[in-house]
Structure formats: C-alpha cells, structure tokens
C-alpha cells in the first residue's frame, strides 16, 4: 500500500483504460512507485487539501507533479486547475494537463489558468509510452520541485 504522504505523482484520470496505460508507461521507466490515482475532480481536491476521504493525510506533503485530465465528472479539470492555482501553497505544484482535446480554447484556457504543461494523449500506443516516459523523467527527475527544496 503506497504511503499517501509520500506521493510523487497524483494522476487525475476518470477513464480506467487510459489510467492503466499511463501507469504501464510510467512503470516502464520505473517512475510509478509512488503514484496515486483519483477518478474525479472532487477526489483530487480532497486528496490535496487533506479532507473528506483523505482526512488523515498530512497536507504539507504534496506530490511532485499532478497529471490532470480535463474531461472529468463532477468537477472539471479546468476547475480543479483554477482552484489549485488560486491557493497560495498548492500553486507551486506543477500541473501537467494530459488530455485528448487539442481544441484551441481548452489549451489557451489551461495556460491562462496556470497549467505548467499541456500534453495530448496520442492514439498510437508507442507514442503514448514515449510521451509518458518523457513526462515522468522530466518532472520527477530533472525538475527541481519545491518539495525537494524542503527535504
């Protein structure tokens, strides 16, 4: 059972197939050790703000990166993004939008709201793996997160 206080990647994805493929891709690069998956926006916010189901979590322990899908039930990806980026502390966590949508208004809005990166899920699996690996590599290994600063 992963320690919910030591999560590196928070994956917010409602489609179980996409979730499985993303995890598989990350596993290939050994980046999936401290991964937690939530299926909608409400759960994502509950996790990060340590409330509801995640009441017992330590709030200060934030993931190194959040992979966020846009099409989510209940609270949408963009709403989650907005909430996170308006919070003084949560704002520092890098958010990578991972979605099927290439439609321009979504991309623009995401960046306006403060997304750090926008990645489109490719149909071809090899490309998908490649994309996820690179993502994981960059945000977990190369990028110097705020958390690392404090550890």
């Amino acid at each position, binding site marked *: 059972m992963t320690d919910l206080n030591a999560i590196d990647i928070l994956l917010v994805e409602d*489609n179980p*197939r*996409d979730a*499985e*493929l993303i995890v*598989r891709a990350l596993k290939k690069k050994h980046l999936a050790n401290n991964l937690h998956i939530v299926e909608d926006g409400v759960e994502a916010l509950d996790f990060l703000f340590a409330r509801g189901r995640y009441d017992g979590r330590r709030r200060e322990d934030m993931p190194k990166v959040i992979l966020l899908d846009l*099409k989510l039930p209940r609270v949408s990806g963009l709403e989650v993004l907005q909430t996170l980026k308006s919070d003084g502390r949560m704002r520092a966590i890098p958010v990578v939008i991972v979605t*099927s*949508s*290439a*439609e321009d208004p979504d991309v623009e809005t995401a960046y306006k709201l403060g997304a750090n990166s926008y990645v489109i*899920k*490719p*149909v*071809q*699996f*090899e490309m*998908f793996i490649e994309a996820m690996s690179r993502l994981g590599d960059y945000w977990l290994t190369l990028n110097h997160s705020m958390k690392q600063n404090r550890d």
Partner: protein
Amino acid sequence: MDNSTPATRSAIYNPGSLRISGIYLVTGVLWILLSDKLAAQIAPSPEMLTTISIYKGWMYVIVTSILLYWLILRHIAEVHESEERLRLVMDSLPALISYIDTNQRYQVSNKMYEEWFGYKVEGRRIEEVLGNRKYHEISGFIEKTLQGETINFETDLQHLGQENRYVNTSFVPDKSTDGVVRGFFVLAQDITARKQTENEIQQLNEKLEERVIERTAQLHAVNRELEAFSYSISHDLRAPLRAINGYTQILIEDYKTVLDDEGKRICSVISAEAKRMGELIDDLLSFSRLSRKEINATYVDMKALAYSVYGELTREVERERIDLKIGALPPANGDPALLHQVWINLISNALKFSSKKDRAIIEIGAQGNNDENIYWIRDNGAGFDIQYVDKLFGVFQRLHSDDEFDGTGVGLAIVQRIVQRHGGRVWAEGETGKGAIFSFSLPRQGETND
C-alpha cells in the same frame, strides 16, 4: 439669367399695342392725305370746303372710333383666347398650380384646387386654406421663397378634409428685373401612389432584413452545433481507439511467450487498423474544420507560398532526386492559411505519387485570363486512370490501393472545398503510369463565394 416675367417686358413694348396704334396711324395718315385732296377736288367753293372739312373731321373721329373699337375688340378676343388656352392647360394638368402674392393670398389657381379643397381659393390667404398646423410647417419655405429662393419639398396634404395625400411641391418666386419679389408660383404634384409604393418597399426591406438576421442566426447555430459535434468526436472516438491500440500492445508484450507468429500478426493487424481509424478521424476533422473556417481574404504571394510548402514537405537529401520547376505565379486574393493547405495537399500528392520514380519531375505554373488565374502542378509519377477522374475529388475516394500508396483520400476533397469556397474550380488530367496535372482556378481580384 433673365428673372423678369413677360409682364415686365410688355410694360414698355407690346406687339399688340404697336399693331393697333400702327393701323390707326396708317389709316389716319392715309385718310388725311387722301380726303384732303378729294375734298379739294369736289368742293365747289371755299365755304363748302370748310363745311366739307368739318364733316370730314367728324367722319374721321367716328370712323376711327369704330376702327379702334373693332381692333381692340379683336385684340382682347385674342388675348382672351390665349388666356383660355392657358387656363385649359393649367386645368388639365394633374397638379396644383397657383400664383400667390406678397400678402400670401391666392391670386390665380387652377381647377385642381377646387377638386382638392372643395372650393375656390382665389382671394383667400394660404393660412386659411391649409389650416394652422400645415401652414406653420411650411411657413419657413414661404418666407424663403418670398426672399427670392426657389424651393422644392415633399409634404403630406389633406384632400377634401379627409385623406392625407402626398405632394411634391415647388415654390418659384416671381421677380422683377430689379430683383423685387412680387409673389410666387406654386406647382404641387400628387405623389401619393409613389409614396405608398416607397412605404411598401421599405416594409418589405425591413421584413427581409429580419429574415436575413434570423437565417444568419440559424446558420451560426448550425455551425456551432457542428463544432460541438467535431469536438466530441475528437474526444470520444479517440479514447476507445487508444485503448484498442494500447491493450493490443499489452497483449503482445506481456503474452509474447504464449502467442505464436499468427497470434502476433493478428495483434499487429488490430493495431494497424486502429491507427488507420485514427488517421481517418483526423482527416475528417480537418475537412470539417476547413469547411467552416472563415475566409480572411488578403494578398497572397502564390509563388513564395508554393516554394515554402515544398521546403516544408521535403528534406535536403530528398530534394536531390527531385527536379522542381516553379514558373511565374500571379498573386491571389484569398485566405493564406487555407491556400497554404491547398499547396500542401497538392504538392504532397505530387511527391507521394512520384516517390517510386528514380527522378521525380514536378512542375508548377499558371496562366491567367480576364476573370481568373489558373494554377497547375504536374508530376511524372504514377498518374491515375482518367476513367475514374470524377471520383478523384470525393471524400475518402481513392484510385490506388493501400499497398501502392498511403493515404485516406481526403486531401483532394479538402483542396476542392477550399478552392470552391474561394469561388474557383478544380480539375485533373492524368494517365496511368504517365503522371498527372492538377489545376485550380481562383477568381481575380476580390471575389469569393461567401
């Protein structure tokens, strides 16, 4: 410009009076000359001469009186006749004609006034005849014309106290040679029928405008629906495709020990078909997006564009085996992004179909006439069977199998759609094995279809 009226001129010189006094003069002179001679001859004595002279004198007065009476009577009859003719003309004209003096009183008026107002207006003041409200509306014009200006205006005028009719009215000042205004003429034509038609046309126009606005709103709504549709396709169809691809891959990777060669082949077929479906969706979406995109027409340097597209589509090493020739291409008036797409599709087709030749020869040129510019691109590649030329531009229509050449068959459909939206046409000629020429026309200067 001579502003004086005939009345002015006749104050000094008048052919009529000249004639009468002329006849009188001549008669008088002749009588005096002849009668004196005659009297002198027939008179027996000087006393008789005196008496004859006296009677001659009386005779002269009586005869010339009768002559004058007769002359003047005839003259007056003539004048009356011409007045009558004038009045006949005035009364027969379907307009209000009158003369008004400086006291704003009607001096002369034609029959129309009686028909219009129901009574004779001569001697009455304008204010009386038109009523207070109407009089104050036009009093400004009346004042201006009494200052010497010719005025023309349209106004409504009550007819026989019941309906309102419309008249086109002119006020023409009557000026003497020294510029003094003595009154003015009124000419008013009934334009009620025309006004009605004008109103009807205006109403029709307004209704038309409303309908155009409605239809445009409907069109916008349809467009938005289409966009939402494309959007949902791009999300909803891709996700299952991704799953098909991905899980097939998992199968291959995780179960490779269990799968035999045939099993692996089947998996790769599944993946390939899923990939193909992805391409089809992408192409369909492009096609739909390009059909809906607004055309922002501007100056486009077609030669530079073609060169740049060629550069985009080829790598340095590939260009060694390609002979490219681009002639003088006239600039076009159109949407740069859309025309860019046209060149991409046409040039990539030329490259693709000549890819199996040792040396690919691609030529691009143009010719123009008064109405349009025709651009063409020729390649020495695989060509196509001219029998099926009609299918060439259909969506997803292909004349070559997948084994021969890659592609979904939507490229030319996109070219046709874009060119048509610019007001032009596309066509192609080709022969199997001998290459093909694709041509498209664009209207010259500023005409587009939408």
